[in-house]
Each structure stands twice: as structure tokens, then as C-alpha cells.
């Protein structure tokens, strides 16, 4: 099964997306549904709006809010998770609160955040950071608690100090699960970025899409959706690429040892 | 090729599972014991290559031919890595030979026939952990559309036949290893196969359990008049169980020798294993299997 030559595998991977795109092109070419304009029109509009026009600047506030919120929330989450791991009393004490905030669907907080902090980008960043914190925190905690006792004994036997143990033993041991937590955080962050822009903002990709929808500029809306899809996909792939690089040892040991999960 | 040994056991050997149902096997009526022209299983010129045409091409079986008559107990022995499991997979229809043929009752195998049962070494994975023991045994009966009251009865009967009490509501992983392999054997016997293929079935249990299971399989075979092919790396086990032994050479495998085991139908662990004939056979087999 794995014996196919390289070109054949490439062809296999590519033909279906190409066929689907072509099908979209052909099927929409004569479409007179207001919701599904011809793909050709969407691409024309894309060039007008995003290449020649000013729409591309809408990406800047979105990406800025997202990166500040996601990175801030992740750092908070990982540090918080490490702290909860280190101090069991704190872990037990905060358990119900942390758990509640973790399972609370974060977008539900949006109206309250508006009431608390008013409109503005700080609020958007804060909301994204807030949503990103909990998956990162709980996965960090779980990952660190799951580190093999034998590894601690080994570290002790080698005379590692506690900081060094954390850095060299706990962090690498917990990193696959921390990465899984950060991936969940990224997904929540993207949702919160778009929703906050849709509900209460004057700029950003979410605002652009909803604004176009409100004035019934469907083709323009489609370009926004495509851009958002591409940006979201690119972010996810960038994250996966980074993860694969940093966790190469982990993926390697798993590929030999067992099933991919 | 040596002549198959006579069918052991009493004339009412068909009555394993206790309901006296007549077994439907054409060759049995026509040929009876020793019908060389109607073997249950006929392996001719079997050759098996993995990853053919690629850099990691590997020949598992070079050339293997033998046939097995109705009612025989044949053991296949060979050193580790001699392609024994591959051979059994080809004999059961789980794998297709690269060339050569495997015929079961005259038909060339394309899948596992309904009349063939397979018992695997790894009972822990072969028994489905999500089903109770009872449901595990029930599954092949459902697949064969056996009516429900009959199925319930048969589950009881085969569990009794393998010496297990009421474990049908328990899960396999709640039992000891030996008991799990008994359940696996019961599951295979439940649909009354004509041919039982076993791949190192006792390799993963402790020595005492192993003796018990060997005697169990001898009894089952005698009571059911079933044909058994058992693959093992343990030559003592092969001599103790078999009427005939197929000795394979190392990788890629070929048949080194096929020899009769004239120890008669009745065997017991202590007596048989210490008999002169047993020891002589053992010495001969060792000389075949040991690398020179």
C-alpha cells in the first residue's frame, strides 16, 4: 500500500480538491441564487477588495488582537497550570472555579465583557486571552501530573535541582499535552476573535464579513469568508508545523511504538 | 507421503457437543479414514512472498506441500521465524498464497470457509473485550443465522465442553489466561467446524495450564472427530498431540520432513512423555530442527 511512487501519492492527494474547486466553478457559473454567486465573481471581487482595495488592513487589528490574546492567555495558562501542579493546596482550592471557567462557553461572557470594559481592542484582547487561558492551564496541569515517577527518580539520582528538574524533565514530559491544550486554546481564540468583532467592533475581519452581510453585499461577504478560512487554516497549519518541529522526538517515538492519535 | 493414522475414538465420535446432530461432511461418508484421494486440506506448492517487487521483498515460504486427511491431528513445527504463522494464515484463507494452491474439501480457498475454525495465540486480543464471554461465543453463531434458542443451548454446551462453568456473563479480561484461551476454543467449537486450525494456542499460558489445555484439545478432537492442524515451536507438544508432524526448515520455509507419530490414540502427560518412542521421536525431531 505504501509502495506507490512519489508522484502517484502527490496526484492522489491533489486530485479531489482540484475536482471540487472545478465543480464549484462550473456549478456556480450560471448560478442566479443570491447566496451563491459565481466563483469567478467572488475572485474578481477578492482582487478588488483585498488586493487593490483596503480590506486587507482589516486583517491587522484581527491578527494583533488574536496574537496578543492567544499568546497572553497561553502564557498565563501554562504558568498557572505549572503553579497548580507545584502547589497541591492551591490546586484543590481553585479546582471548582477553574473547572467552571473551563467548561463555561467563553462567548457567553462577551456581553458582560462589553458591560465591564466598554468597547475597545483591549477588551477584545482580554476576552481572547481569557478564553485561551483555561484549556492551556488544565492541559498543562494534566500533562505535568502525568509525568512518569521514574523520571523524577532519575532526575534526583542525577542531582538535578528543582528548577532544572522542571525545565529538563517535567516540561518535556508534559509538552505533548501542553501542545494539545494550546491547540484547543488557539481554536477558542479564533472563535472569540471573530465573534467579538461581529458583535461589538468597528474593525477586523469579523466586522468586515458581518457588515457585508448586513448590507447584502453577498459577493463581498464571500471574499471575507474565504480570507477568514484561509487565515484560520494557515494559523492552524503554522501551529501544527511548530508543534511537529518542537515535538519531533515525541512523534518519532510514537510512530515506531504505536498508533497515531 | 506417509499414510494418515486411523481415526481415533469411538464410532459415536460425532457427538461432541452432546446433541447427537449428524455432522455433514461428504468426504467422511465417502472415504472414511485414510481417504487419500479426498483430503480435508490440500496444500500444493505453496509459496508466499511479502512486498513483492520492492527493496524489502521477503520470501516467507519457499515451497510447502502436504495434505491432511479427515480426522487427523497434524502439528506443524519449525524454528522461530520459519513462516509458521504465515503458513497457517494461508491454510485458513486469511492470506492468499503468492503461488500454489490451498484446497479445503476440494475447493480452492478465497476466504475462511464457514466450516473452518481458527484459534490464535493471542487470546487477549482475539477475544473481543467489549463482549461478554457468552456474546463472544454467540457472535459466530449469529453470523451463521443459528436460531436463538439453539444459540443459547450451544453456548452452554461448548462452555461445558471446554471445562468452564458459568462465565458467559463475565468479560474475557476478568478470567485468567488459560480460561480465556478456553473461551476462545469454545467460541471456535460453537459452530462445529470440520477443521480446526490453531496458531501456537498454548504459547502464552503457564506450563500447568498448557498441559491441561493440551489434554482438553485431545479430548475435544476425540469427541468431535474433528480434524486439527496445530502450529507450534515446541516439539514436545507436537509429539504429544500429533498423529503426524510436518517439520519446516528455517526461513524461507520448506518441508524438511513429514513423520508419523505412532503413539496411539490414548495419551497422557506423564506416561506418553516418558515413553521410549516419545524420546526417540524427540531426539529425531531435535536433530531436524537444531541448526547445524
Amino acid at each position, binding site marked *: *500500500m505504501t509502495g506507490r511512487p512519489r508522484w502517484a501519492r502527490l496526484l*492522489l*492527494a491533489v486530485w*479531489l*480538491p482540484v475536482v*471540487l474547486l472545478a465543480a464549484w466553478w462550473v456549478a456556480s457559473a450560471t448560478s442566479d441564487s443570491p447566496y451563491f454567486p459565481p466563483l469567478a465573481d467572488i475572485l474578481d471581487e477578492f482582487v478588488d477588495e483585498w488586493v487593490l482595495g483596503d480590506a486587507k488592513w482589516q486583517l491587522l487589528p484581527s491578527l494583533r488582537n488574536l496574537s496578543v490574546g492567544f499568546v497572553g492567555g497561553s502564557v498565563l495558562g501554562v504558568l498557572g497550570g505549572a503553579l497548580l501542579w507545584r502547589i497541591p*493546596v492551591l490546586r*484543590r*482550592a*481553585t479546582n*471548582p*472555579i477553574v*473547572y*467552571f471557567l*473551563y*467548561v*463555561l*462557553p*467563553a462567548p*457567553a461572557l462577551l*456581553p*458582560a465583557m462589553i*458591560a*465591564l470594559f466598554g468597547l475597545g481592542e483591549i477588551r477584545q484582547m482580554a476576552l481572547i486571552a481569557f478564553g485561551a487561558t483555561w484549556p492551556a492551564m488544565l492541559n498543562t496541569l494534566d500533562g505535568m501530573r502525568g509525568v512518569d515517577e521514574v523520571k523524577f527518580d532519575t532526575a534526583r539520582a542525577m542531582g538535578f535541582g528543582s528548577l532544572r528538574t522542571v525545565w529538563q524533565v517535567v516540561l518535556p514530559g508534559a509538552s505533548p499535552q501542553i501542545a494539545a491544550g494550546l491547540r484547543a486554546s488557539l*481554536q*477558542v481564540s*479564533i*472563535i472569540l476573535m*471573530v*465573534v467579538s468583532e*461581529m*458583535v461589538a467592533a468597528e474593525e477586523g475581519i469579523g466586522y468586515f464579513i458581518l457588515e457585508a*452581510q448586513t448590507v447584502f453585499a*453577498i459577493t463581498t*461577504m*464571500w471574499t471575507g*469568508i474565504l480570507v*477568514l478560512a484561509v487565515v*484560520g*487554516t494557515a494559523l492552524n*497549519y503554522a501551529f501544527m508545523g511548530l508543534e511537529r518541529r518542537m515535538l519531533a522526538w515525541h512523534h518519532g517515538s510514537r510512530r515506531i511504538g504505536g498508533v497515531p*492519535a | 507421503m506417509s499414510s494418515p493414522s486411523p481415526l481415533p475414538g469411538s464410532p459415536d465420535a460425532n457427538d461432541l457437543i452432546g446433541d447427537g446432530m449428524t455432522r455433514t461432511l461428504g468426504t467422511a461418508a465417502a472415504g472414511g479414514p485414510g481417504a487419500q484421494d479426498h483430503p480435508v486440506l490440500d496444500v500444493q506448492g505453496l509459496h508466499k512472498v511479502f512486498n513483492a517487487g520492492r527493496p524489502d521483498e521477503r520470501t516467507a515460504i519457499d515451497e510447502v506441500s502436504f495434505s491432511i486427511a479427515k480426522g487427523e491431528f497434524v502439528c506443524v513445527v519449525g524454528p522461530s521465524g520459519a513462516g509458521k504463522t504465515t503458513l497457517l*494464515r494461508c491454510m*485458513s484463507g486469511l492470506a492468499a498464497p503468492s503461488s500454489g494452491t490451498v484446497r479445503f474439501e476440494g475447493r480452492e480457498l478465497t*476466504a*475462511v470457509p464457514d466450516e473452518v475454525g481458527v484459534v*490464535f495465540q493471542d487470546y487477549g*486480543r*482475539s477475544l*473481543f*473485550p*467489549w*463482549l461478554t464471554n457468552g456474546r463472544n461465543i454467540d*457472535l*459466530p453463531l449469529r*453470523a*451463521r443465522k443459528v436460531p436463538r434458542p439453539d444459540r443459547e443451548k450451544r453456548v452452554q454446551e461448548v462452555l461445558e465442553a471446554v471445562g468452564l462453568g458459568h462465565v458467559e456473563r463475565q468479560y474475557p*479480561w*476478568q478470567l485468567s*489466561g488459560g480460561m480465556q484461551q478456553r473461551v476462545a476454543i469454545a467460541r471456535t467449537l460453537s459452530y462445529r467446524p470440520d477443521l480446526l486450525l490453531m496458531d501456537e494456542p498454548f504459547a502464552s499460558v503457564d506450563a500447568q495450564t498448557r498441559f491441561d489445555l493440551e489434554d482438553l484439545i485431545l479430548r475435544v478432537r476425540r469427541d468431535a472427530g474433528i480434524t486439527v492442524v496445530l502450529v507450534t515451536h515446541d516439539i514436545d507438544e507436537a509429539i504429544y498431540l500429533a498423529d503426524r508432524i510436518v517439520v519446516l526448515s528455517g526461513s524461507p520455509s520448506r518441508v524438511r520432513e513429514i513423520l508419523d507419530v505412532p503413539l496411539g490414540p490414548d495419551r497422557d502427560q506423564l506416561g506418553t512423555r516418558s515413553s521410549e518412542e516419545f524420546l526417540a521421536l524427540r531426539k529425531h525431531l531435535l536433530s531436524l530442527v537444531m541448526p547445524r
Partner: protein
Amino acid sequence: MQTVTRYARPALVPGATLLVVLVGWQAVTASGLFRPDQFPTMTDTFSALGAALGTAELWGAVGATLQGWAVGLVVAAVLAIVVGAALGANDLALRSAASVIEIFKAIPAIAILPLVILVLGSTLGMKVFLIAFGAFWPLVVQVIYGVRAMDPTVSDTARALGVRGLRRFVAVTLPSASPYVATGLRIASASALILAVVAELVGGAEGIGRRILFARNAGVSAYPTMYAYILVAGALGILLTGAFFLLERKGMHWHESQRGVGTGGLKAR
């Protein structure tokens, strides 16, 4: 006496924190650090919650959110199991579809929300479509992993026993893949709740998210109600996560990870 304290102690520390948080909430709001139009007091919020619990409005909203969550997840799960099992069994089809699945899995479901609102309106169908779209892609990947990770001994055994077709799928393939499917469902369930709230908040479908927005739009006097509804949203999260945990324990009781967790399970081997 001693046993009472022994059993009560685990709940003591978290209970105390909860108390501190509630009292702290009351302190910062009642003292005027936050104005009532920013953050209502704890007592106001809880009395609003008490009042809301007696209204059909709240329970209708909870029902609508749960309905969207459940229907969306079921649709996604059924489709993912059928498609995933088919792809998992066919190498050529899988290699063809893999890139499409990877791309769609990476697209944030939220991107299609405006389009879905436009086509389907502020309806249950809109919510269900969004949730099903968001849950399907990660789920189908898990199903494929699960089917492909099937132990060769398990599939050999099924063939040797003559178990084929639909029976094989139901009795062997699905249970064998179920640990992967369960993990996928657990993750999908959390994101489905988020998407349900978003569909209500942005798309205007009936449900808890829409009620939160209504309360906010009703002005300062309704703020305690808004927070009460947020608490209810969190309670929904706890309920669904907990329900999933119990369901997984029950459905997967045979799996190595769950053995001996339940009652009276004999130790394996």
C-alpha cells in the same frame, strides 16, 4: 465523628474558596469599586437567578441550546462514523480525501456563520448546521484513526469467525474504534456548546446565548439577569461535561483505561 471529618475535608478547601470568591464578588461590587452598570452584586445576581429559574423563558432557552447541541452532534457523529469507516477501509479513497478533510478541519467553523445565517436564518437548522459542520471534520479524523488502528488480530478473528458486512461493522469495527470516537466526541461536545452560544449570540437563534444578549440590551436593571444566564451557561457546560464523563465510563467499561473504575470489577489477569 472522625469519619465525618475525614469525608468532609476534601470538600472543605474548595468550598472555602468558593465562599471567598462569592464574598469577594459582593465586596467589590457593594463597596462601589465596580458600578452596578458594570458588575452587579453577587446577591442581586443570585436573586435574579432564583427568579429566572422559575420562568419558562430560562428553561425554554436551556432546552433550545441543548436541542441544537444534541441534534448537531448526532448528525455529525452519524455522518462521521459512516464516512470515516468507509474511508478507513479503503486506502485509495482515504488518500484522495485526506487533503480535503485536513483543509476543512483547519477552517474555523465560525467563518461560515454569516453565510449560514443568510441561507437558513435565525433557526434551529442554522445552529445545527454550524455545530455539525464544526464537529464533523475533527470527528471524522478520529473515526479514521480508530478504524485504521484496529488490531490485526481483531480483524483476523472477525474474518476467521465468518463475521461479515453490517454485523462486523456493528459488533467489531465500531467497538474497536470506539475509544477514538469517544475522545473525538468529548472534544466535539465542548466546541459544539461554544458554537451553539455563538449561533444564538450572533445569529439570533433561540437559546441561552440570545437570552444573555437580550438581558444586556434591556439595560442596567437587567444586568443581574445577564450574569444569572451566564452562570446557567456555565452550569450547562458542567452538566454536559459530566454527562459525557459518565457515559464514557459506562460505554467504555470494558476498555483497559476504565477497568476496575466501576463497581465490583475483577482485576484483569
